[in-house]
């Protein structure tokens, strides 16, 4: 369904949301105030692992500045936080809302205090005395699986082991001429939005209703969890979402603080606000990624992969979260990416340690999968003296074999069936875009002069457009305004523009006449939210389908008004008129809406009042986006510092709604990947203490770390939704670490890269190991 030339669908429109934000009229959670509002502060565990002997809140309670203190004693019988992707085999190591007898990571909530403002709340929080009995901690996943390791929960730290097997890998290994074995490891890092978490809970005694305004991606899920925790029915809990200053996945969890605030507001009868500070964010908001893959790869003399065995270990931290198992599921099930590997087995251990819990964030599982698989491709290329691009081309699934079921499935996401695309063409285009061949020549020349340049490829396939469903509703008001309600929940992706483009396209109205509303569970009964690169494909389809329903109804009403057959009518410029004469006789959409308003007989042939329709779109399966990144780097042999020179992306997100917005998503994703490849890590010492919980030590990419990023969109529409849209929010983060790692490895060959972040120290050590520099060289 494409718009005529000059239409809004597919056009690089400036965003509707920006002028308001640019004027300072954004209203993020910290900006909101309510009458009589109080501030909460959380007392958090300073220990990674300890028994709680007692919590003495008497001094805090006696302080006249204290309004309230809650500990686990005040909140008995609260259900733990849910994990919705747990399998039958998953041990129920869920997180309590507030620690009762034991703490399992530094930052775990132990008590909450309330005072008139945040300064005072932090003062009185210090008066809460918790008597801990420290226990030995374990932070390394392999150590945590060993007998005798400190056990966080019951019996074992091994929360689950997932097993995948397709084909006959044993036979393939038996027959294989070549085998490689290596460990590829990805570190723990985090979504780290610029806005931390925060929420305000309010109690309305008249409606006997709690309203939580919270910086989340999934308001309807948060509402369900609050209903369960507070024992309140659906009509008495409302979740609202303000402007959200970035989320990236870390705001898909219902966090303990959101539940605690609701309790406090109901108990105190006053609004209670809590805003996380950055230290809290780094220790107590979910992390992701920490996972390694011990792979064995069988391949032939032409570089074709015959079989892979993967032992994957995910260090998931102290507790299950809403979607803890996604990281291991995707990490192994999507390991083989765009490559034709039919004999495969994987074992994925999910291990609890005394670190903050993990939950998906941008690129979940795919990042580790692509890093591992692309390092495998490069390793094979080196072994055989082939160009890395050529090895990839020989292994890619050819386009004529799509759709291709991969014989694997993920819980919640279902069967993995690559739906559409051309992986080899994407690679060829990326090589051309990056000037790959020219760089190879330049690289040789520069290496002779002592400059270490490298180029790397990061190809990936990514599950996007995740279900289960999304809601879209569209209506035409009597003013002619088109109002869209969506269950999507924006945090910077531009949905108020892109979803409006879909509605404006379907109804042939001006963008200015479309208003997209979201983030209110009273308005959107069946919303899901924004994550897993799903909003354009799933939320967008719901809006498209609803708008098509509205168009049909509008035409039916207009047909009565104009005494013309529906098939002779068309919509343009906000009017219904006779096909071919848009300026001729017709009626405006406002007139159509007025004719269908209650208070008068329904127009002939029209069955209900109002010009509105709702669609809840359930995709049959995910759609699989893909892309190829090419990165060029220079490595300073004296310091091991990696400088990115250029980064190029060819990406197939299917049909593009707004190329400006999609470019921004991809470029932002690449910067994410740069952080993961080179800079970022949430570091814990062996005793479980976080070592870098501030932006002074946790290094986010800054302007100077990010080179020019060119993005080209390759469009192979998916057959799985009417507009052919695949996801676009995460691929930038998925392909980039693999490409950068490949480029660094290329630059320092025969030095090797098997783990991220690729810090100067690691690079320097690899250079020394490879004999490219003297061990003393770095000490100058």
């Amino acid at each position: 369904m494409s718009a005529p030339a000059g239409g809004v669908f597919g056009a690089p429109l400036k965003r509707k949301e920006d002028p308001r934000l640019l004027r300072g009229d954004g209203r993020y959670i910290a900006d909101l105030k309510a009458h009589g509002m109080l501030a909460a502060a959380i007392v958090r565990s300073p220990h990674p692992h300890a028994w709680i002997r007692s919590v003495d809140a008497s001094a805090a309670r006696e302080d006249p500045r204290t309004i309230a203190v809650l500990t686990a004693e005040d909140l008995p019988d609260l259900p733990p936080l849910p994990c919705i992707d747990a399998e039958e085999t998953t041990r129920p190591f869920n997180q309590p809302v507030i620690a009762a007898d034991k703490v399992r990571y530094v930052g775990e909530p132990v008590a909450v205090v309330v005072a008139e403002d945040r300064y005072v709340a932090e003062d009185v929080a210090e008066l809460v005395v918790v008597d801990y009995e420290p226990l030995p901690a374990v932070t390394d996943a392999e150590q945590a699986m060993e007998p005798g390791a400190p056990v966080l929960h019951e019996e074992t730290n091994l929360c689950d082991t997932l097993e995948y097997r397709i084909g006959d890998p044993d036979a393939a290994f038996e027959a294989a001429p070549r085998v490689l074995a290596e460990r590829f490891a990805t570190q723990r890092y985090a979504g780290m939005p610029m806005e931390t978490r925060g929420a305000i809970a309010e109690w309305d005694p008249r409606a006997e209703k709690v309203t939580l305004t919270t910086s989340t991606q999934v308001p309807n899920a948060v509402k369900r969890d609050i209903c369960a925790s507070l024992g309140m029915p659906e009509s008495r809990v409302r979740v609202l979402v303000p402007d959200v200053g970035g989320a990236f996945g870390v705001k898909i969890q219902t966090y303990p603080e959101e539940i605690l605030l609701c309790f406090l507001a109901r108990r105190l009868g006053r609004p209670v606000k809590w805003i996380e500070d950055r230290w809290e964010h780094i220790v107590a908001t979910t992390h992701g990624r920490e996972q390694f893959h011990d792979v064995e790869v069988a391949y032939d003399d032409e570089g074709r992969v015959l079989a892979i065995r993967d032992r994957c270990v995910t260090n998931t931290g102290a507790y299950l979260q809403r979607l803890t198992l996604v990281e291991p599921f995707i990490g192994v099930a999507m390991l083989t990416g765009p490559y034709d590997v039919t004999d495969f087995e994987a074992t994925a251990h999910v291990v609890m340690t005394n670190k903050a819990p993990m939950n998906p964030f941008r690129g979940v599982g795919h990042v580790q999968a692509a890093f591992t698989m692309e390092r495998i491709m490069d390793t094979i290329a080196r072994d055989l003296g082939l160009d890395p691009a050529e090895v990839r081309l020989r292994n890619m699934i050819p386009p004529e074999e799509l759709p291709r079921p991969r014989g694997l499935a993920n819980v919640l996401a279902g069967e993995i069936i690559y739906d559409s695309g051309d992986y080899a063409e994407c690679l060829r285009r990326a090589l051309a875009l990056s000037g790959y061949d020219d760089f190879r020549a330049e690289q040789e020349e520069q290496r002779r002069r002592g400059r270490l340049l490298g180029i790397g490829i990061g190809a990936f396939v990514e599950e996007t457009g995740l279900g289960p469903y999304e809601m879209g509703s569209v209506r035409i008001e009597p003013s002619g305004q088109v109002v869209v309600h969506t269950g999507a929940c924006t945090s910077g992706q531009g949905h108020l523009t892109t979803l409006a483009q879909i509605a404006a396209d379907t109804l042939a109205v001006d963008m200015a006449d479309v208003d997209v509303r979201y983030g209110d569970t009273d308005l959107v009964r069946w919303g899901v939210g924004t994550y897993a690169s799903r909003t354009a494909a799933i939320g967008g389809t719901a809006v498209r389908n609803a708008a098509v329903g509205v168009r049909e109804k509008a035409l039916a009403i207009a047909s009565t008004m104009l005494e013309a057959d529906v098939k002779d009518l068309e919509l343009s410029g906000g009017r219904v008129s006779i096909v071919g004469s848009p300026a001729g006789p017709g009626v405006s959409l406002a007139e159509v809406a007025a004719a269908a308003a209650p208070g008068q007989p329904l127009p002939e042939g029209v069955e209900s009042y109002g010009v509105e329709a709702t669609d809840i779109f359930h995709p049959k399966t995910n759609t699989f986006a893909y892309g190829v990144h090419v990165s060029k780097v220079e490595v300073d042999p004296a310091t091991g510092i990696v400088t990115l020179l250029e980064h190029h992306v060819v990406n197939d997100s299917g049909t593009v709604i707004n190329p400006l917005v999609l470019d921004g998503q991809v470029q932002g994703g690449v910067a994410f990947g740069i952080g993961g490849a080179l800079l970022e890590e949430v570091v814990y010492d062996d005793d479980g203490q976080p070592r870098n919980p501030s932006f002074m030590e946790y290094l986010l990419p800054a302007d100077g770390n990010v080179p020019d990023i060119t993005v080209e969109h390759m469009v192979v529409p998916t057959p799985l939704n009417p507009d052919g849209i695949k996801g676009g929010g995460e691929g930038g983060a998925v392909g980039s670490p693999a490409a950068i790692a490949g480029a660094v490895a290329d630059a320092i060959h025969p030095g090797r890269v098997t783990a991220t972040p690729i810090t100067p120290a690691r690079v320097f050590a690899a250079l020394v190991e490879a004999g490219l520099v003297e061990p003393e060289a770095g000490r100058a």
Partner: protein
Amino acid sequence: MSRHTITLTVNGALHTEEVEARLTLADLLRERLDLTATHLGCEHGVCGACTVLVDGRAARSCTTLAVQADGAAIRTLEGLAADGAELHPVQQALWEKHGMQCGFCTPGIVMSLVELLERDPQPSGEAITETLGGHLCRCTGYVKIREAALEAVRLSAQAGSGTHTPEAR
């Protein structure tokens, strides 16, 4: 906690406030004066979201105490294009070039670029890089912010002097 009476100008309006010594300038602006465009991303002076102009110079309002701003002229994002006035060239450029996504870091970036352009209407690429280097953005990947900064220089030159006269220092 000692209390102090301070007087300062914020976006041209004079305010006298009694404050605790520990109150930050950011919290004074946000909590007392309801100027919430100045955002707090880290509260330890790294991310730059809280950048405001203090007597014409970009400063981190999270690590500036309110008492340090006694007697100063403060400018925040709200003062740039008040009451529906045309967007400042820096704001316009960020819109045109999609130099923002969630918008949380944007106010700080706007204020730093405004300072830069007021100091030097034709800044070098290096000066732009140095200015942007003081800000973290998690959404955009910076590429479009850089494009926006160059566009702001162009729009600013086009608008000419007089449209956005820097305040007396």
